[in-house]
């Protein structure tokens, strides 16, 4: 890695004692000696193992659940169903007033995705829990499922999630988050070329080497200590408090040392049910996702679809950009309404475009609920935007890198969401990339700066 200190030297104070110094990491000695304590390194005598019985169907009504055989299985201590969960219908962003509550801790009457948690089995050993889980009988009536976002948005599509009542998240702005800037149709009318293209992505798993999980120990005083690898301690504690209808003062979370997250550990999934299990049995409980659960049950990055329509001039100026973004939330909201909205703020990318129209939708389908991942709301949008930029450049016969310079935002430029640009540095990144990659551009582009067009 090279630090190019020549850029922005005038606005940066170097020569500090600790900042900017490559100090060794204080946690690394623990890592290389195997001494770093992750949540699963806590082991308590008498700890129970929680295994989840999951829906084999994408969408189904639960006619009945029979746990009697499982309860009799040797080593089984307790079997939990929806009725055991004090506040079974929740949504994690309710803490920042983004509702409605739309997800069940344990399925109640219906499952909306393949892999949904239905019954929790607690046993003395993992093996006993697995054997008992295989004995839980759930009678399902399979319902029509919808996987495709455009299908889900059509009239008459099966309703995925009754708590919403329609297959999209209803923002205060309506069925999508909107950004309107300038007059996009006038921009298209003025453009030399119009290019409309569609991009899509598949769900992506975070795949941290440490799977999601927690170990809960009763403290003996009505408090419960939850050793967890959550990415957000109080966020998880406060949601657990709501779900369990238990004062937060009864909960003690210990964590902060996590074997990789990448956004995959911000859902509040394992902790509430494990704390409930510890409370109902009086025993320590561990609930750790298997690798298979981590891969196929934990929330992935959402599948997205992005449609971009651009109006571009022969001289390289983009004069109008219309973006329609669809985020596949799967069956439940989790963080997706937030992510779709973040996309609306991110488009039209780091470019100054006078006429912009953005709609971003958060759509419900019977796919695995998606949630945050590294680059949430932006990564797939950047893929779409930057492939589109390449196509536009080629459409007008211009070098793709030079085309970027023409449109790059600079300090003072008004963004589509009506914030003036501050602290831009896109141009300098591209100038340095031009040098590093030996991809020459016209001298005039090497002479400009993010400090603004006036300079």
């Amino acid at each position, binding site marked *: *890695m*090279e630090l*190019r200190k020549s*850029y922005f030297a005038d606005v940066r*104070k170097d020569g*500090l*004692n*600790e*900042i*900017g110094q*490559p*100090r060794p*990491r*204080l946690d690394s000695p623990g890592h290389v000696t195997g001494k770093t304590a992750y949540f699963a390194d806590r082991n308590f005598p008498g700890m129970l193992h929680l295994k989840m019985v999951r829906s084999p169907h994408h969408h189904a009504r639960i006619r009945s659940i029979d746990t009697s055989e499982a309860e009799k299985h040797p080593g089984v201590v307790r079997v939990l169903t929806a009725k055991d969960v004090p506040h079974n219908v929740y949504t994690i962003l309710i803490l920042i007033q983004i509702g409605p509550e739309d997800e069940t801790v344990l399925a109640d009457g219906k499952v909306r995705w393949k892999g949904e948690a239905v019954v929790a089995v607690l046993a003395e050993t993992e093996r006993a829990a697995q054997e008992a889980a295989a004995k839980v009988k759930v009678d399902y009536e399979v319902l029509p499922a919808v996987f495709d976002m455009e299908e889900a948005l059509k009239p008459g599509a099966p309703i995925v999630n009754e708590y919403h009542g329609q297959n999209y998240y209803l923002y205060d*702005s309506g069925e999508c988050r909107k*950004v309107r*800037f300038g007059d996009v149709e006038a921009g298209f009318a003025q453009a030399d070329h119009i290019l409309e293209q569609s*991009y899509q992505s*598949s769900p992506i*798993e975070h795949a941290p080497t440490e799977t999601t999980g927690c170990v809960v120990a009763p403290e003996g005083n009505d408090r419960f200590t939850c050793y967890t690898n*959550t990415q957000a301690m109080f*966020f998880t504690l406060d949601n657990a408090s709501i779900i369990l209808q238990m004062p937060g003062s009864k909960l003690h979370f210990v*964590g*902060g*040392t*996590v074997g990789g997250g*990448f956004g995959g*550990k911000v859902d509040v999934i394992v902790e509430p049910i494990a704390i409930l299990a510890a409370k109902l049995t009086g025993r320590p409980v561990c609930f750790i996702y298997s*690798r*298979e659960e981590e*891969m196929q049950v934990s929330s992935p990055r959402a599948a997205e679809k992005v449609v971009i329509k651009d109006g571009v001039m022969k001289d390289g100026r983009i004069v109008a950009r219309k973006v329609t973004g669809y985020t596949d939330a799967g069956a439940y909201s989790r963080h997706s309404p937030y992510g779709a909205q973040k996309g609306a*703020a991110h488009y039209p990318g*780091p470019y100054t475009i006078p006429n912009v129209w953005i709609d971003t939708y958060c759509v419900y389908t019977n*796919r695995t609920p998606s949630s*945050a991942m*590294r*680059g949430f709301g932006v*990564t*797939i949008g950047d*893929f*779409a*935007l*930057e492939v589109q930029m*390449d196509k536009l450049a080629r459409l007008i016969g211009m070098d*793709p890198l030079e085309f970027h310079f023409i449109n790059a*935002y600079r300090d003072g430029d008004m963004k589509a*969401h*009506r*914030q003036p640009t*501050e*602290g*831009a540095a*896109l141009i300098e*990144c*591209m100038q*340095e*990339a031009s040098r590093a*990659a030996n*991809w020459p551009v016209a001298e005039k582009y090497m002479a400009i700066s*993010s400090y603004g067009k006036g300079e």
Partner: protein
Amino acid sequence: MAIRRGRGVAAINYPTGMNLGGDPTQALVHSTPTGNFMVTLSSVDLGQGMKQIMAQICAETIGVPTDRVVVDTADTDTGPHCMGTFASRGTHRAGNAVIQAAREARQVMLEVAAEELEVNASDLETDGQGNILVKGAPQKSMSIFDVALSAHFKRGRSISGRGMFLIPRSYPEKETGAMKPSTCYAHACTVAEVEVDDETGEVTVLTVKNVFEIGRALNPKMVEQQLVGGSWMGISHALYETTEPYYPNRDHGGTDFNQYLMPGLGDLAETEIIVLERPSADGPFGAKGPGEMCANPQIPAIANAVFDAVGVRIDALPITPERILRALKAQAAG
């Protein structure tokens, strides 16, 4: 058979912190009797090095070496609230909270030293090595060790501070979408060079040259760790990763590390990282959040490079050999 070469470019920006703000983080800092400093948080270290960076930020602010700072996180019985580690917010939000707490503790520390040295606190400075000096008269000094002892046992002062950082929440205007999503943005530009086997659709990423602008590299080696790892993940997202390889058929999702595909040690691209620093107005020492954006620009850069190599556009991720081969066959069929 032909191995065909292409290159592509992409440029991006990325907001630091939770979209639209409203995401607080607090920190507490206190000194021990011998002038070591404890930072208490509930922030989560996912492996990116949050603990180390908070130690360096506290040390710089107080004026002691980093090894005199201990970071205690994350225990909800002791650590004050942090919204969490996500949205490239950890360094920015918690860092600001630590600075504020450390400044308050530093002020008490200087006041105690001022009493001991019989000068005004405003006339004191730290040397970064653990000593407090009188400005312009460095021979008149006192170690932080002694200042802490004095505070604890003689003066009855708590060298401690409280920090809170909150960017007020922005609410998007319904019709126009006017809003303030973030206060600062990191930037990047990546040029990727690939080879594509036009008989099998296999892509080899030869080089990725990444330029990242991240505000301030608080610890350059740790920045490098994250940027190199992120660049690898970007390549992985571009070419390999999916939980539903044959959607709309939802079968055949990988359930292990053999079948959920990511580049192996034998697939690594030659990776160049160049870092620029334009300090942000509200970042701790100017830092922005590099953690997420470093994995973004490789994806479109590779997509564009594949097009440059073989003339087919793959507009769906991941860009698998199968998708390329199908496109090449369609192209050949006219």
